[in-house]
């Protein structure tokens, strides 16, 4: 679809545009993780750039002389792209704000500090069942606010923050509308386009993204379905489909499956949950990220709540099977997988775990392809 491609081309121009803006005095803030709210960066008059690239084998390997081999490939990639000189924004970023909620990304932040990059850590307490621990993250948001204000020389006013929140909510709303089209028997888009759309919205100005998403929705709403009416409907769950890591997603839909819903943590908007626009905007952001949404994998306790959300998605999107898309050596997701496998087994919902190391050579693809094909064929036979 041309409109999606157009948004994609605009997203690809983001580094060039940021370089230009930097030259004109705008501060550039890279960030890792959804617990670093891009709304705050916009409200400070800076420009955000999401760091979440993956899907290539060399970057994770490039840091093996420095970082443990058993860190997940996304964390190693983010460092590796920089080390290889392939990260277009990090060298001129004024700040790299990193969510500190789990060890892979926490150590990545320390590694970036060793590279003398301007890292700012945003602490996220995972014991979210107690008031004072929740407040820790709020204080971290206040600290980030101070940091951004000092960096840009601008005060983050409630008004500016509210404006950025409204933009995010509008993007979320449009993504929800587009996502809703996938509930049809034969939808006009699948997970491949939807994940791309998500990514593009991180790398385009909010107003532009809103305009394009609206046009995309209008066109898709009238568009014919592009899947077989008996296409197996999949839920793709896991840590992240990183920017550039599209091979498995593409392959699943090439094989005739429809990725009808996702349950992903990073590099993906938490678009099911809007930030309240009325009242204290920072407090609202805190509540949205921390309490409103289904917990992230590392929150404790979290897995039963997360599975309840998964069940809801399975029902709402009439899911035939679940793909657990796991980053290699991502030990906490690996533990959660065992629980999900147990619970889905009790519900008799088919499940396939796919682990990625970002190694997609022909040798690696052959067995992977066979597994994906078998799973999709099995689901087709079941329909």
């Amino acid at each position: 679809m041309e409109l999606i491609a157009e948004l994609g081309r605009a997203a690809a121009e983001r580094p060039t545009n940021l370089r230009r803006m930097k030259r004109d005095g705008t501060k550039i803030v890279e960030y890792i993780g959804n617990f670093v709210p891009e709304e705050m960066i916009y409200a400070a008059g800076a420009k955000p750039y999401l760091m979440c690239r993956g899907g290539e084998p060399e970057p994770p390997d490039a840091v093996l002389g420095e970082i443990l081999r058993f860190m997940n490939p996304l964390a190693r990639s983010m460092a590796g792209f920089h080390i290889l000189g392939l990260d277009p924004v990090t060298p001129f970023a004024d700040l790299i704000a990193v969510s500190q909620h789990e060890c892979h990304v926490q150590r990545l932040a320390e590694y970036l500090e060793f590279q003398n990059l301007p890292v700012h850590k945003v602490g996220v307490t995972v014991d979210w069942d107690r008031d004072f621990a929740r407040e820790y993250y709020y204080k971290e948001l206040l600290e980030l606010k101070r940091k951004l204000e000092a960096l840009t020389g601008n005060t983050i006013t409630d008004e500016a923050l509210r404006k950025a929140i409204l933009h995010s909510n509008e993007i979320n709303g449009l993504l929800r509308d587009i996502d809703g089209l996938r509930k049809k028997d034969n939808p006009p888009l699948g997970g491949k386009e939807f994940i791309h759309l998500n990514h593009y919205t991180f790398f385009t100005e909010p107003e532009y993204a809103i305009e394009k998403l609206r046009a995309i929705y209008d066109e898709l709403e009238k568009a014919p379905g592009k899947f077989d009416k008996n296409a197996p409907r999949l839920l793709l769950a896991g840590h992240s489909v990183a920017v550039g890591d599209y091979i498995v997603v593409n392959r699943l839909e090439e094989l005739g499956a429809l990725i009808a819903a996702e349950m992903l943590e990073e590099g993906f908007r938490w678009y099911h949950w809007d930030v309240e626009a009325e009242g204290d905007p920072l407090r609202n952001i805190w509540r949205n990220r921390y309490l409103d949404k289904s917990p992230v994998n590392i929150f404790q306790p979290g897995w039963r709540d997360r599975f309840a959300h998964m069940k809801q998605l399975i029902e709402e999107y009439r899911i035939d099977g679940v793909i657990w898309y796991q980053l290699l050596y991502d030990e906490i997701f690996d533990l959660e997988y065992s629980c999900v496998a147990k619970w889905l087994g009790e519900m008799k919902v088919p499940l396939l775990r796919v682990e990625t190391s970002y190694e997609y050579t022909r040798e690696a693809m052959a067995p992977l392809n066979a597994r994906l094909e078998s799973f999709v064929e099995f689901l087709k036979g079941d329909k």
Partner: protein
Amino acid sequence: MASTAYEEFLELAAIEGKERERLLPEWIEAARRMRLSEEDVRYAAREWIPKHVEMQYLGCRKLLGAMVRESIDHTKLPEYKAAGKKIVYGVLPANVMSYLALKRAGGDKIFVSFPDLNMMFMAQYFFNRGGQYFEIAEQAGMTYGARHCALNKMRIAIRLTDLIPTPDVDWAWGLVCDEATKIDEYINCMYDEKWKTVITRLPHDTSADEVDYEMPDRARFLGRELRYSVGEVEKITGIKVEDKHLEEAYAESQGLLATAGQLIGMTVRADPQPLRSSTLLLASVAFSFPLNTGLDYFKDGLVTLAEEVKRDVRSGVGIYPKGVPKVGFYFIPFALPWIDKMFMDNGVATSISLTFLPAKRQMEPSKYTDPYEKAAEQWLKKVYGMGCRPELNDWIEKVNMFKPDAMIMGFLDYDRWIGALHKTMAKKVEEATGVPCFYMEADFYDGRDYSPEALRTRIESICQIVKSRKAAKQGATGSAGN
């Protein structure tokens, strides 16, 4: 005279006379429950332990005895539970003071221990039989390929095999890695819905220019986490921990730290060295985890060993030839004592472990009056209680203080916090100190992947390099065939 392998083992553990008679049937039953055959016990008593621990010292035998008594006590847990005793587990690494305080408060009404670590000492360090437990956890769903921590596998396995019952609560600290506390959620979701957990966590979010233990807000927050956790444990167990228990436990843990610190310092400065590094770790047990049987047996062993070592250091007696090169470790993999032995066999002494060498700051009086903040500060002063810049400075300080001939980092390939940046840190320490630093990818507890054959070449190479460097330093010349 010992008549059975079990009795022989107790004799080795310096358990004598009437107590031995009393403990013998309990020890036989404990070994059975721990899945140790009589042949395993015989092999450990005659070969494995004497080969890997300096059993010529009565102090070492007494320390083994303290661990045996503790293990016998652990295998009585089902009976304790049936009798209504409150059971609290903990997980490494944690600040032992908090658990000592709990035990002080509860006395005989409560059982407090880290059962997985206890079993790691018994099954793996003393018997080389930990593998059977790791496999049980893997067969029950904890996948092999994701590089999970073997200590966590041990926790799962001893629960699955009913060696330990469901506790009233597991108070788990996730101040280092994510997996330690998440295993509790895993056990609860997978196997045991009654498995309750209280977690104590703190994000790793200090900047490179910040020092964790110098940040009052950080100590205050962690103190609050500790206070909250103790409160939850109190609610569950009905046992009230008062400030005096914490104060006493603080003094006790600082005292242990000082005694162990003296022993470690005396040992690693000696030439020849009287103990190997993994034995020093045995002497540090009681400030790693709480012993439900109390500290008396352990203190007796520690004090005896310290006296024996002092005597031998004065007389110039050691287990290595005088003048052999010494290598330090980030953390000697004690549970795989054959690694230590392999260095010994290659003419190199194992010396300091950075984690177990108390830094000067740890011996200084606390800045805080609140006992929970004191405990928090005690944690934040530990080498793994801080971000990697201050940690790097700590490593450099200790390496400069003891100047080993080389340092070995690694052995923590499954730990995404402690082990994640050892390669980078090794380079930085080498730059700052001039001491060559090597990195070894290996496991700290589990020898199945990194077997003796897999590590032999690497260890031999390191030893050759270290010895040749030392010879070059001393102006010695080597020639082929010497």
